[in-house]
């Protein structure tokens, strides 16, 4: 199994790569290399619009959409998860990849922002290694309004219900950072990669 991590500027690529050190991992920055991988991870930090622009300039927008349709596993992390959705209202309005249905909006300003640190999970679809009351490390200021409640595997609460792990068939999203969430987080990432989530 070859895992590809989309490299489109500065992300937390090194940490994700370290977390998956037992697998063969390559960096993907063009359509050609994307077609060689079995699992694709879309990481991301920074602004939504900027990230989409980078993906577009690398010719990866349609390639990622095509990858999602192929049935191979596609995993979005943090901003990478948000990019899977239809649109974002981060500093304007931007079109996303539209692989999942929903939009990305600002966290309620009743809370300290960014939502930074370890927050408790409520798990709607438990599996071995993932259960309610585990903690995930989050760093974000925007969150996904998921249209289909059934796709929320785990959520957390921060002024609103925040989807923490979402899944639709072969598509998985982590709003938090599994690669930074200690041993449990590394376990979730492996489960996602191996289709056990």
């Amino acid at each position, binding site marked *: 199994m070859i895992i590809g991590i989309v490299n489109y500027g*500065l992300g937390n690529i090194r940490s994700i790569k370290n*977390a998956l050190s037992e697998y063969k991992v390559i960096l993907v920055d063009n359509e050609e290399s994307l077609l060689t991988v079995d699992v694709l991870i879309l990481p991301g930090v920074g602004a939504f619009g900027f990230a989409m622009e980078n993906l577009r300039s690398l010719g990866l927008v349609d390639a990622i959409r095509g990858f999602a349709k192929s049935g191979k596993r596609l995993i979005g992390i943090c901003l990478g998860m948000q990019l899977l959705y239809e649109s974002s209202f981060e500093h304007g309005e931007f079109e996303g990849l539209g692989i999942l249905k929903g939009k990305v909006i600002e966290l309620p300003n009743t809370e300290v922002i960014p939502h930074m640190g*370890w927050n408790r999970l409520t798990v709607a679809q438990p599996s071995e290694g993932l259960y309610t009351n585990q*903690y995930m490390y989050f760093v974000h200021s925007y969150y996904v309004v998921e249209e289909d409640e059934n796709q929320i595997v785990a959520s957390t609460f921060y002024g609103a219900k925040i989807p923490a792990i979402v899944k639709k068939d072969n598509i998985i999203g982590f709003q938090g950072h599994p690669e930074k969430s200690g041993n449990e987080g590394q376990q979730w990432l492996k489960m996602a990669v191996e289709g056990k989530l």
Partner: protein
Amino acid sequence: MSDLAKRIIPCLDIVNGNVAKGIKFEAVKAIGDPIELAVYYQNEGADELVFYDINATVEMRSTFINLVERIAETIKIPFTVGGGIRTVDDIYNALLSGADKVSVNSAAILNPEIIYQGAKRFGNQCMVASMDVRKLGEEYFVYTHGGKNRTTYNAIDWAKRCETLGAGELVINAIDQDGVKKGYDLALMQQIREVVNIPIIASGGAGNMKDFEDLFELDAADGAIAASIFHYKTLAIPSLKSRLSRSGIVIREVM
């Protein structure tokens, strides 16, 4: 009520590749190997770690960056690096080496734009504005160069300015409390809390469990940094966390 846990953050001051801790920024004493200590704290349940490059001379810079890479390869929790960050390129190098956040202190006083530029380029989540604060009369002032030089900045105003510039987090280091174990400067944290809406990490003064409890019960900060009490094993993180949890503070306990 949010379930976001209050963070316990050991701070590792790095001198010549080793962990050191000074009392009131003087009398630096070597303690141990940074990687060993980082893994130890991670396993004990530390929520994050901070590494400060204390001497930060140009020639020692690559040693520190090399250490940052080794830390990133080893630990599975977030960490911040600081000390000697002067330019946006320094920020880029630290992030590229695997740091999750970069802390700027003196450089931001000399050139506040560095916070704005760093946040714009890498996102505000990775820009930590750290400030050394000392009370003079009734007013809090920002100091630079390890507390040696007083600036004209009022600490509360400066905190607000850092937020406006794009900092995603503040580390408030009360110098008078540093290493003297009299507790965090709660009044200072609360005053800053009133004017900003980004996370606040308190630093300087932790001497016992009650100091953490007081800080979090007042919700005066989102996290607490401490060094010597952890390094000298005056206080173990698991017992600190279980006490805080029993007091009703949301805390992540590691089984």
